[in-house]
């Protein structure tokens, strides 16, 4: 698999002047043909990573490799990556055709080759017939597609997209999410996509990097990250979740809210303090004495697809439930969940340690 790696960050730190580091000793690699998402709250360093890959800034420490060659000092115009900017950055003095043709003209391609490639790129983004339009005559969604066409026409190995959908309305955004993903599959080019919208990240990515304050908290497939967040930040940031303190009695048995529950996690010390995560949609409303837990409904919100029910158990833990069934405020209800719904998080565990533990205890399970 190593030869599939296109870009590799090795202990990259980025610091402006005397400010605290914007990126903190970040390492990751990016492989051919996959869809990556950088996800994190505002100011966590997503754009900085893209700018480092594109070559608009240089790392303070560490190395960036491109096909295993150090790229730190290679200027942006010599890199095999193209960027779709957040504000699209289309050239206002050029029409659609010339915008898309810009990179090819710089390279000195022949006119008929330029024409062929530009029209093909425009066909890819469904903009045939718009060649002669001025940029200001295009709608937001169309501009975005021009920006994508301008990037793909150069046949780069990697395309970087910095929150390209954030300026669009919800409906167009959903549409473009499909289109982008579809486009990436057809082209087979690596996409590195930046967003702070977790649903967007989950829907589109092969692999997600969750960033926080200049660190990669966790990376993995959308399901990995959603089902097995390694810490409170990731659990909270990726979707809504119930996070309650608990004690690991033994492998596959956790105690919380005064009760013992079966679970599927292991590799902990006996009686270790942990946090457990249960997603609100994994909680099922039952009659009070049929559930594994009892809670008193405190508030309820109709969200369209489901009801969002909030309540407290006897120990005062707050629980959030997503259910298509309605409950009544003040009512006592039971909550049922499967052992698989429980995810146990070790306090202060890094991603590496998490992976090691996962490996260790699944080996132990197989040895049984």
């Amino acid at each position, binding site marked *: 698999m190593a030869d599939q790696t296109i870009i590799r960050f090795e202990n990259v730190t980025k610091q402006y002047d005397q400010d605290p580091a914007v990126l903190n000793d970040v390492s990751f690699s990016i492989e051919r043909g996959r869809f990556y998402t950088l996800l994190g709250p505002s100011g966590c360093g997503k754009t900085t990573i893209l700018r480092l890959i*594109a*070559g*608009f800034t240089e790392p303070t420490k560490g190395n960036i490799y491109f096909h295993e060659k150090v790229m730190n000092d290679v*200027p*942006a*115009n*010599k890199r095999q*990556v*193209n*960027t779709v*900017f*957040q*504000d699209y*950055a*289309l*050239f*206002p*003095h*050029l*029409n659609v055709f*010339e915008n898309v*043709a*810009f*990179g090819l*003209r*710089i*390279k000195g391609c022949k006119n008929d080759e330029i024409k062929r490639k530009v029209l093909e790129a425009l066909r890819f983004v469904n903009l045939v017939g718009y060649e002669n339009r*001025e940029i200001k005559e295009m709608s937001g969604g169309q501009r975005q597609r021009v920006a994508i066409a*301008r990037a793909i026409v*150069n046949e780069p190995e990697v395309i970087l997209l910095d929150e390209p959908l954030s300026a669009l309305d919800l409906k167009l955004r959903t549409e473009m999410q499909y289109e982008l993903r579809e486009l990436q599959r057809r082209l087979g080019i690596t996409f590195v996509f930046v967003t702070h919208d977790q649903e967007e990240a989950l829907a589109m990515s092969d692999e997600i990097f969750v960033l926080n304050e200049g660190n990669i908290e966790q990376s993995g497939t959308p399901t990995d990250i959603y089902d097995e967040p390694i810490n409170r930040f990731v659990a909270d940031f990726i979707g809504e979740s119930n996070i309650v303190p608990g004690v690991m009695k033994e492998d596959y048995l956790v105690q919380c809210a005064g009760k013992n529950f079966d679970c599927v996690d292991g590799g902990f010390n006996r009686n270790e303090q942990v946090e457990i995560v249960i997603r609100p949609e994994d909680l099922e409303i039952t009659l009070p004495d049929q559930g594994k837990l009892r809670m008193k409904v405190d508030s309820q919100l109709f969200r369209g697809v489901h009801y969002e029910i909030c309540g407290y158990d006897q120990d005062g833990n707050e629980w959030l439930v997503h259910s298509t069934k309605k409950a009544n405020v003040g009512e006592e209800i039971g909550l049922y969940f499967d052992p698989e719904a429980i995810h146990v998080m070790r306090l202060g565990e890094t991603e590496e340690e998490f992976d090691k533990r996962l490996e260790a205890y699944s080996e132990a399970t197989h040895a049984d």
Partner: protein
Amino acid sequence: MKKKNGLGPKIYLAIVFVILYAPIFYLMVYSFSSGDKMYNFEGFTLNHYKEVLQDTRLLIIVLNTLVIALLSAALSTILGVCGALAIYYVRKLRTQNSLLTLNNVLIVSSDVVIGASFLLLFTIVGVKLGFVSVLLSHIAFSVPIVVLMVLPKLNEMSPTLIDAARDLGASRWDTLSKVILPFITPGIFAGFFMALTYSLDDFAVTFFVTGNGFSTLSVEIYSRARQGISLSINALSTLIFFATMMMVIGYYFIAKRNQRGAGMGVGK
């Protein structure tokens, strides 16, 4: 919505314009008077115009003025664009603001001061007063104007545009010539025409730095007017006025064409 545009504003505007333009029209009318005084219109004649057109000294001066104006406008546009780019590329906001203030001081400071200081400078350095000294001083007072016209355009440009050009493989020169310059072209034109008009009608600075044997129109008119009023000056002024009008109209059309942003291809 009812249109509630009463006559009031229109009349007010009309009065303002009449007051502004009346002296000019008065002067124009008398350029056709066969008398030699600026009162008592005595009958129509084109003699004053003939006089102007036969006055070779005057025609040479007109030519001088135009050459100085065009040359100084062109050179100061180049220098001004470079200056604006330099200010734009200065990263520190404090330095940027100080540079801009220095630039603006040159614009607001009085012509007499600039003229006198140039006279001093040229005498010290030993530049012969004449064409070169006038040209140099015109360039000097035009550059800040060009900077002032170009810089807002640069600031209006999104910095990601430059990143985008670099990203698409453009070298620094390509970025400048294919993205930045086309973007600020309207500002460059505006700066050029401002410099042109400032140079054409400058009196004070030129008066200081012009030597014997070289003169521009405004200086010449001034010295002729001092010797006693001749209506040929009126004729000359009328001609200048119409030339200026033509330039303003020309500028208007160029500006309009630029606004439509007719796609100037990046083609080679």
